[in-house]
């Protein structure tokens, strides 16, 4: 037993509950938050790869002592290899993604603690609950268990927006919940249909049943399950038609909350996307659909971003657009494509968090997000301006940063798959992303300061700058040595392709 695997989820959830109870005790909240935030990337880093069977029940085939004496009706059939308990799988790809998610959560929590005079236990509680849920989604090999954490993550996201003191945050959070009340039950119905057809909720067992003819792969109920699960996936990740509400959610959260929310979306996208590929990749239409919806997300996200006047909404739309790149990689379905897609997911989570926190310094100094009312910020915040510029270059895929490597891999993967049109669209949209970012950067930092702009005479907290430098280091390391990341991701990609 590798107890560190369940502890990746148990530690943040338990501490989150304590923080909620102790929310009035500022020093205690701060101390617990600091320790737990540190544990988020550390525990997966030191944990060994392995499989955790909750309740201690592995499949009978792996546990001959229990199998002794059982009738052949059980030991001689597929029941012998089916998983009787909830199973968590911790492989190299999960390790990288959970470490990166923990890393983003660590800085989001630290900045939120040090940017305010009184640390909020409720805010820390929501951030930890959300992070724990996404970690569980990445680990879980049980689709119903994944759904439970999907719901917790959705509620944590609503909570993060609700406690952010941003105009119209209540309204946006309520809208997200209402739309979720359409999408989440449909996802659950999809899972129920899958259970009805296969008699299983363990993903490995479902895949086995379909591949070995235990169920009819063309069963109409299975096809309906696929469409409903995909619909739930679109909601959880913010792909069209949910891109408007998702971008609104990011823009109505505080910068630390937005940085974490987008990381939740990216890793939910990967967690559910991989399950869809594992179960339904035998349907050629599943690949076509993923590519199609990803192209729509990229185009709508990036073209909507360029027309925005609110910089938080602009980054939010860019984040939605960048999700499309991940989807292209997954949709191509080749080992190179999936590796590139997963690599892009890791990169995008870091870069978008970097941008939200970087532009968050403008909000910290001016309390303003409307670009038409901003200007001349280069003089006020020269260090963070430089870091924001580098983050923007990274997002657009400029070398030597990480997104350059992942986008190059995606272009190569689409060329290898005989789809040069996708490669051209990705390059075109990267150019537009670059232009969109430079427009925002020029407006906020380079043009003259408007006379009526009030700037707070307070230094940007050191932890914010440290976080930005740390994100920059990750961008550079993965950009200069992409094999560090791709070596972790290749195994998973090859098992799905």
């Amino acid at each position, binding site marked *: 037993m590798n107890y560190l695997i369940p502890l990746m989820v148990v530690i943040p959830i338990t501490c989150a509950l304590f923080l909620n109870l102790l929310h009035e005790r500022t020093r205690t909240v701060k101390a617990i938050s600091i320790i737990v935030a540190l544990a988020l990337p550390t525990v997966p880093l030191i944990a060994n790869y392995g499989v955790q069977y909750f309740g201690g029940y592995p499949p009978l085939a792996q546990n001959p002592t229990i199998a002794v004496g059982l009738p052949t009706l059980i030991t001689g059939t597929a029941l012998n290899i089916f998983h009787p308990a909830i199973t968590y799988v911790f492989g190299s790809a999960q390790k990288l993604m959970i470490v990166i998610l923990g890393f983003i959560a660590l800085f989001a929590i630290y900045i939120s603690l040090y940017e305010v005079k009184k640390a909020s236990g409720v805010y820390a509680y929501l951030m930890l609950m959300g992070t724990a849920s996404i970690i569980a989604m990445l680990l879980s090999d049980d689709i119903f268990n994944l759904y439970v954490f999907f719901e917790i993550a959705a509620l944590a996201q609503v909570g993060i927006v609700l406690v952010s003191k941003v105009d119209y945050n209540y309204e*946006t959070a309520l809208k997200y919940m209402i739309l979720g009340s*359409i999408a989440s039950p449909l996802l659950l119905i999809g899972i129920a249909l899958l259970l009805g057809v296969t008699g299983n909720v363990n993903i490995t067992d479902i895949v086995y049943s379909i591949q070995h003819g235990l169920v009819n792969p063309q069963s109409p109920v299975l096809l309906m399950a696929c469409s409903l699960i995909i619909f739930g996936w679109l909601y959880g990740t913010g792909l*069209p038609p949910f*891109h408007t*509400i998702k971008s*609104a959610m990011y823009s109505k959260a505080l910068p630390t909350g937005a940085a974490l929310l987008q990381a939740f979306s990216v890793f939910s996208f990967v967690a559910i996307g991989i399950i869809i590929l594992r179960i339904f990749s035998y*349907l050629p*239409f599943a690949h076509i*659909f993923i590519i199609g919806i990803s192209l729509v997300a990229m185009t709508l996200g990036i073209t909507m971003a360029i*027309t925005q006047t609110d910089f938080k909404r602009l980054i939010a739309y860019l984040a939605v657009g960048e999700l499309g790149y991940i989807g292209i990689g997954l949709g191509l379905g080749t080992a190179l494509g999936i590796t590139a897609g997963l690599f892009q997911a890791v990169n995008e989570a870091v870069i978008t968090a970097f941008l939200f926190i970087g532009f968050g310094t403008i909000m910290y100094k001016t309390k303003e997000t409307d670009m038409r009312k901003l200007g001349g910020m280069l003089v006020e915040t020269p260090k963070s301006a430089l870091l924001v510029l580098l983050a923007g270059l990274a997002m657009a895929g400029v070398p030597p940063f990480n997104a350059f490597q992942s986008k190059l891999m995606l272009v190569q993967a689409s060329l290898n798959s005989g789809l040069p049109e996708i490669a051209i669209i990705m390059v075109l949209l990267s150019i537009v992303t670059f232009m969109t970012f430079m427009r925002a950067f020029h407006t906020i930092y380079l043009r003259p300061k408007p006379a009526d702009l009030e700037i707070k005479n307070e230094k940007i907290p050191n932890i914010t700058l440290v976080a930005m430098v740390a994100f920059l280091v990750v961008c550079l390391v993965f950009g200069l040595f992409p094999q560090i990341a791709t070596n972790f991701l290749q195994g998973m990609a090859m098992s799905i392709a």
Partner: protein
Amino acid sequence: MNIYDIILKKIKDVRMETGDDEPVSNMAASSMLTAEITIISTLLIAVVMLRLLNKTLMIGSVVLIFVLAIVAMPIMPRLKREQNDSLASMSFYVIIGLGIIVTLFYWGNLNG
């Protein structure tokens, strides 16, 4: 009236409809123009992928979409107006999206 003036007029129309009476800046107009060109070119390039299905269908679709894009230009202000934060409009597109997905996966795979 050239394309720039048409886009400028359309942005003003959309802004009047949404109650935003601020003057249209050069940056807003050029952003809209970039978005317009991006969306049309992306659409045209994406349609070329229909060559995998049928080359005649691809040529016909490219010509049709090109003509439609020219006639319907500017598309972007309309698209922006549709993608607003109104719950009614978001719910509408969510239901339409659900209908399309279920139809494509259920009916498409059964009859594919």
